[in-house]
């Protein structure tokens, strides 16, 4: 029989806490921290929560930019919401926004960025430097410059119509959504390529060499090894690009101003049209609230994804 000898130096937990302070391995709260958090809280409330809250309030008023309700506006309850629900342009705009941010932002930049990163992996150093610099330049160009470049390239006499043999075609006006999506993808691909290049360097070379020894061809190595290992990065990058595309109002506004017959009328552009052309600031604020909700949902998805990765569990299981 084993006798459990009690350690004479053992003390109760409370005694330990009284002597050494609280445990450091669990979250704890000190009231004095509120004072130190106050500046950050003030900035957050002043620059974010208050303006967003005021904008939410304005969404339920009949405020106008200019007109009878510019100075004397009142709370109109759900009137704007009823208008929103019956607004066909709004539904089309939501659809176009999803096409733009998911199609061009998430899918487009991921594919283009991956292609560039994978191709540059095994390229000459000089080629890699030139190509990645060009990709980064495309990303850092101001949206106005990107808009002008793509406007010139896709209208009559521009690079693309001439290349495809129809110099008099106005590709921008015939396929507005496609052209602005391409422009957006082109501008963000540089960032995606950098992210993927870094991630690719973390793919263990031993696994790839082992796969080569097992007679796996390049395609199998890519789809069964590289891409699954890259999956968390791909998801994070896709979500980041989605959020960035959401804010790409300037590009579409300068290229098509919402497009022929609202073909490229994403939600931010439509909100601007309502607020500053039709002067209906109240309704534009409500559309802005919808944008905040959509971005919020995407932001939550991003945070959830990041946290799931940090705690060691990847959101999807991968097979190797």
């Amino acid at each position, binding site marked *: 029989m084993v006798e459990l000898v009690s350690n004479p130096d053992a003390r109760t937990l409370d005694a330990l806490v009284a002597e050494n302070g609280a445990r450091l391995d669990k979250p704890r709260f000190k009231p004095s921290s509120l004072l130190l958090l106050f500046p950050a809280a003030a900035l957050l409330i002043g620059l974010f929560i208050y303006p967003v809250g005021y904008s939410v309030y304005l969404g339920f008023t009949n405020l*106008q*930019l*200019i*007109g*009878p309700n*510019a*100075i*004397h506006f009142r709370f109109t309850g759900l009137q704007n919401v009823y208008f929103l629900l*019956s*607004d*066909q*342009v709004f539904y089309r705009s939501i659809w176009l926004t999803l096409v733009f941010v998911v199609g061009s932002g998430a899918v487009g930049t991921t594919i283009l960025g991956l292609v560039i990163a994978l191709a540059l992996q095994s390229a000459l150093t000089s080629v890699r430097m030139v190509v990645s610099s060009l990709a980064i330049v495309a990303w850092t160009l101001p949206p106005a410059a990107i808009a002008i470049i793509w406007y010139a390239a896709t*209208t*009559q006499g521009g690079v693309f119509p001439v290349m495809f043999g129809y110099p*008099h075609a*106005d590709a*921008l*006006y*015939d396929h507005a959504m496609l052209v602005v999506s391409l422009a957006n993808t082109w501008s963000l691909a540089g960032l995606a390529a950098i992210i993927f290049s870094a991630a690719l360097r973390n793919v263990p070379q031993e696994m790839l060499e082992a796969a080569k020894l097992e007679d796996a061809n390049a395609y199998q190595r890519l789809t069964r090894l590289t891409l699954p290992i890259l999956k968390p990065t791909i998801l994070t990058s896709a979500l980041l690009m989605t959020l960035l595309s959401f804010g790409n109002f300037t590009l579409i506004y300068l290229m*098509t*101003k*919402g497009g*022929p*017959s*609202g073909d490229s009328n994403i939600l931010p552009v439509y909100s601007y049209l309502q607020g*500053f*052309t*039709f*002067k209906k600031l109240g309704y534009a604020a409500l559309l802005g609230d919808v944008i905040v909700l959509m971005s919020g949902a995407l932001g939550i998805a991003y945070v959830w994804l990041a946290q799931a990765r940090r705690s060691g569990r990847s959101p999807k299981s991968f097979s190797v």
Partner: protein
Amino acid sequence: MKIRNIINANMPRRGLLALALTTALGAGTTLAWADAITLKVAYSADYFMSSPDLAKKWFGEIKDGFEKSNPDIKVDLVPIQGGYDDFLTKLSLMYSNADEVPDVAEVPAPEIGQWVASDLLAPLDDQLAKTDWWPQYVEPVKNEGTVDGKVYGVSQGVNTNALLYDKTIFAKANLPDDWKPKTWNDILDAARAIKKSDPNVWPLWLLTGTAQGTQGVVLGALNLMYGSADPEFYNEKDDKWVVDGKGIREVLDFYRTAAAEGLLAPASQILNANGPGIVAPYLPKHQIGITLGGNYVPQIWNNVICGPCWPEGVKDIGIAPIPTSQGQAPGIATAFSGWSLVMAKGSAHPDAAWKLINFMFQKDLALEVGNYGGLVPPIPSYISEKAYIDFAPSTQKGFADLLPVARSAPSNAGYKVWSFAIAQATETLVLHPETPIDQAVEGMKAYVAGQLGDDKVEVRK
């Protein structure tokens, strides 16, 4: 920090510092008191006048001249950049901020109705009655700035629109040198002849599309609307907007036919957000056969504005009024829109502001701004002034003669929506001429009804 540290041997130095600071602040406030009257003048820096330098020049002259004759008043110029809609947005935001309200502003006249409804402008009837130049104004222009019987905007002049045709291209197409179309079909026939004689030339330039904002319609489709079989697109009695009727269908059909036969300039040009401004350089290159343009277009080729300089323009470009659709009375049509000066209701110095406005309307300055802004003067006697005629000798009189039949755009809020709807409808037909007119009209109806409500639309058979 302990009190001991503050009160010590460094007292004299700290005391001097504190004294210096207080004096500086006090002096600042005293200076502000002495310079009591500052008038803010807001104007469009690069959209309104034919070139940004001219805007700077004219307003600089105003500032210098006025400050010289009124030494105790300072003029603070506030140039606002951007196109028509952007300029209006920024100006609206200025008015809603008490610190930034401009005492005097130069605004497009169709917007005055909205500003008055926002209770932002001061009526000027009393002051205008005492001047000698206001009674000389023609009635349509006086009415442009009048809302509910009171005058809020004093016009500096208006734009009218007509057909500018290239005589060299016409000669090649065997068209008459003194072309005077009687119906819209005449315009299309001329365009067809031009296309046949030279496929590289753009037969007809006519603005369309939503990218140009409200001004694009005033310089484009609205002219045709006023010449159509039923020019009344706003039923003022019932406060309803007409979205389907003989007039609208005629306008849409014109665009559709022209686009279907390839008679229009390329879409990227006429749909361009800067449509009104980009046409002038193309005429010296003999690129366009017939241009539906404003009176400011031929002025751009003179020696003052020089964008580009084209002295041959005087003999190469002819002017013909826009006909009515079937030649019905009054035979010609045009839309006009002008620019006016307004005074803010919340101005701290209304008397000084009125003095400034009166200063701006002295004959020389008024003629100068009319020329720089590409406007037809509102006073008939000015039209025969050499300064006006010489600015574009072949066309100035022609444009001025259109003033009696010209009609301005309505100034109420719903107009923006109707204007957007017809811009969208004409844009669709230009890009897809195979679209049936019924579909385009349906689109107009859906849009206006969707934005303003079903009770605000009217369908006329």
